[in-house]
């Protein structure tokens, strides 16, 4: 078959994503029934590959998609699909070239991360929380989405998601979450 893909299902057999309801992510790409939907395996692998978050961190959670590529993480019971207002919390934006974790997810689960975490001094953290972009030439890790963190009460604590390109860290903290501290 000309259009046979790695997941075994041809494009024509897959349903279109319904943006009005939550659908649970399939375990693997091979079990996919909705076109373009990320699998649980791909999401967990992404968090492990990019940030070093151990996959078992998510053993008790399910992942859901609503809208185009917006992924939610949930710890409770629910059938799929389900039409409600929210299920757990948004965690990741897929269906684009670079997947982008949410600031709220990073604050909740980022403590498990070991890679792509940029540790900020207090004044840098203050600017990050206020939503400001800043030049941080000293970073020699990966470019792209990073977990910004700082030390609070003697321990590292994630602040949110930042985008690092060309020596600059751009704060991705959503407007409503920005604070002047």
């Amino acid at each position: 078959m000309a259009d046979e893909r790695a997941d075994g299902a041809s494009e024509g057999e897959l349903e279109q994503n319904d943006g009005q309801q939550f659908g649970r992510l399939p375990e693997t790409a091979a079990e996919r029934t909705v076109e373009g939907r990320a699998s649980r395996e791909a999401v967990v692998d992404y968090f492990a590959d990019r940030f070093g978050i151990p996959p078992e961190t998510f053993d008790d959670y399910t992942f859901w998609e609503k809208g185009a590529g917006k992924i939610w993480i949930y710890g409770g019971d629910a059938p799929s699909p389900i039409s409600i207002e929210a299920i757990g919390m948004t965690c990741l934006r897929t269906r684009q070239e670079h997947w982008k974790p949410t600031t709220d997810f990073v604050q909740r689960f980022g403590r498990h991360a070991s890679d792509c975490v940029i540790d900020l001094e207090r004044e840098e953290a203050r600017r990050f929380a206020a939503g400001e972009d800043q030049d941080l030439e000293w970073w020699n890790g990966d470019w792209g989405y990073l977990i910004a963190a700082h030390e609070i009460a003697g321990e590292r604590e994630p602040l949110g998601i930042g985008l690092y390109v060309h020596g600059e860290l751009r704060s991705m903290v959503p407007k409503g979450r920005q604070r002047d501290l």
Partner: protein
Amino acid sequence: MEPLERYRPIIDDFEAFLAACERPLGNAVRVNTIKSSVERATAALEEEGAEYEQADWNPRVLRLETDSPGSTWTSFHGFTHGQEEVSAVPPVVLDPEPGERVWDCCAAPGGKATQLAALMDDRGTVVANDNNLGRISALRFNAERLGATSLAVTNDDARNYSLERFDFDEFDRTLVDAPCSCEGTIRKNPDALDNWSEGHISSVAGIQKGILRRAIQATREGGTVVYSTCTFAPEENEAVVQHALNREDCRVVDFDLGLEHSPGLTEWEDDSYDESLEQAARIYPHQNDTGGFFVAKLEVTA
């Protein structure tokens, strides 16, 4: 303050009550244990020089000495959530356990729903419902900021709430923190009594009765329903519980509360209520220097 005169016969030290109602309320926050231990949150507050006092009855409730409790690192990180001290009472009385299915039927803006999730170690299912779509955005914002992954948010009228959308057909516990005339918030909202009328109380009581009845029906036998309001009016408190006792299979049960309070009423004007209503709690502003609140705990008996 005029409308509050009707409570002179039922409130001990009524002058102290009125004086407390005139005083503005201080800032309180609840430590969100989904994201931080009490020790870490208080250490973080100390690090940034914020003065606080821990509530005797609940170590997770802190009285903050600041004009802007939302502009602290603990708030940015979701370690703390601004929540009036008495508003932290109903989830503690409901006392949910990890893994249970819990319904918060009037949940926005989410302070109590996220507190329920925290009491359950964010494990289990908290269905946070509200009939007001506008307020649901505040609920969602707070749930995400506080990192509550066990919340499922719905937008419906609690009075005819359907569980068909879920794969379970009853809850273990339900919180009815009912919409009310809000007399007890006078210290926070000085205009709380501006539109006060007995007609308003009577119409809101009708809604409260409908919500509480549905809550009892949706909760399993042996399960718990907590009914609370932030108002003093017996028509919205004891009378609503009495209505539920008459119509549904339930009984009022006792609970421990580490805050000074008065017992629920068994008489008001021409009405009398079941003696078991003495086990409900009326929290008046002068008793603990808080807002006013009413809480009753019910057990579902069939």
